[in-house]
């Protein structure tokens, strides 16, 4: 196993890359409806969409309520989403990881 600091550097770099993408690239993302929404419009079932239960959420539609600047609002919402996803992911995967790793004697016994 490579040392832990190298993995930590990789994760931090990856998060910074993700931040850069939502700050710098998302403003020029294509605003048109995506594939499913386009099909729904063209085929005539777009009207069956109902209001979203969290449509009034402070982060609804990738904007932070209270931040009026479009670009900043979207970028900030992206950073919040990235951090929330990372945190929820860490929690889920910490619960879903292989057991017994922290026990050196057992880990040694399992090596082959």
């Amino acid at each position, binding site marked *: 196993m490579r040392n832990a600091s190298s993995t930590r550097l*990789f994760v931090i770099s990856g998060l910074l*890359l993700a931040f850069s993408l939502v700050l710098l690239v998302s403003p020029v993302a294509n605003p048109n409806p995506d*594939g499913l929404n386009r099909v729904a419009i063209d085929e005539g079932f777009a009207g069956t969409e109902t209001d979203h239960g969290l*449509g009034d959420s402070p982060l609804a539609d990738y904007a932070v309520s209270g931040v009026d600047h479009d670009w900043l609002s979207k970028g900030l919402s992206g950073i919040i989403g990235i951090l929330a996803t990372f945190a929820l992911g860490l929690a889920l995967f910490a619960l879903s990881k292989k057991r017994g790793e922290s026990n050196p004697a057992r880990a040694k016994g399992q090596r082959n």
Partner: protein
Amino acid sequence: MHIPDGFINAGTSAGAALIAAGGVTVAVKKTSRYLDDKQVPIAGLTAAFVFAVQMLNFPVAAGTSGHLLGGALAAILVGPWAGALCVTVVLVVQAFFADGGITALGLNVLDMAFVTALGGYAIFLGVRKVLPHERSSVVVASGIAAAASVVMSALVFFIQFAIGGNVDLALGSVFTAMVSVHTLIGLGEGVITAATVGLVLNVRPDLVYGARDLGTTLQIPQTSTAEGVL
């Protein structure tokens, strides 16, 4: 690709939610067989990265955009079951952004997380079998698997729509429209996935689950267990 509330009726959505919940339970169990301490932050990062890239819609045709689904990418980086969990986490967080319906969450978890991660990974393995045993094959197979995963996702949406669509329409027309537009989106998915896997292979080849058999780590290769996981 996110299905909003209302497209699919309540019964079908509830059924999908039950299947999705079962899928998550199985995925947690399967993941706990192989995900070690070192990979936990990598899996978290993979989920976070998919969230970010899903915000970057690219143009695919007149008046239409597409974005990464990311299930195939996540599966190749951290394994198919952990990959499905990565996209599931993304979908749960996106509910707070009003992206993807709440009653439709189970439908979306099936389409966007499980179909793309498990189906994409199966195709990845199949393509790798016919390509040379080398690093560049991993990149090519990633692109092909990712492209195909988007079409598979569209097909599963079509099945859900055929079962529980809230409006009576000519299904053949919906089928053709879904498959054709998602074939185009699949091309974008393939390029982004191949580029990302190629990048990680260059920087930290030992972190690419789908390349474990190449012995890319600095340690003595101990990759014989990688195959039995799926």
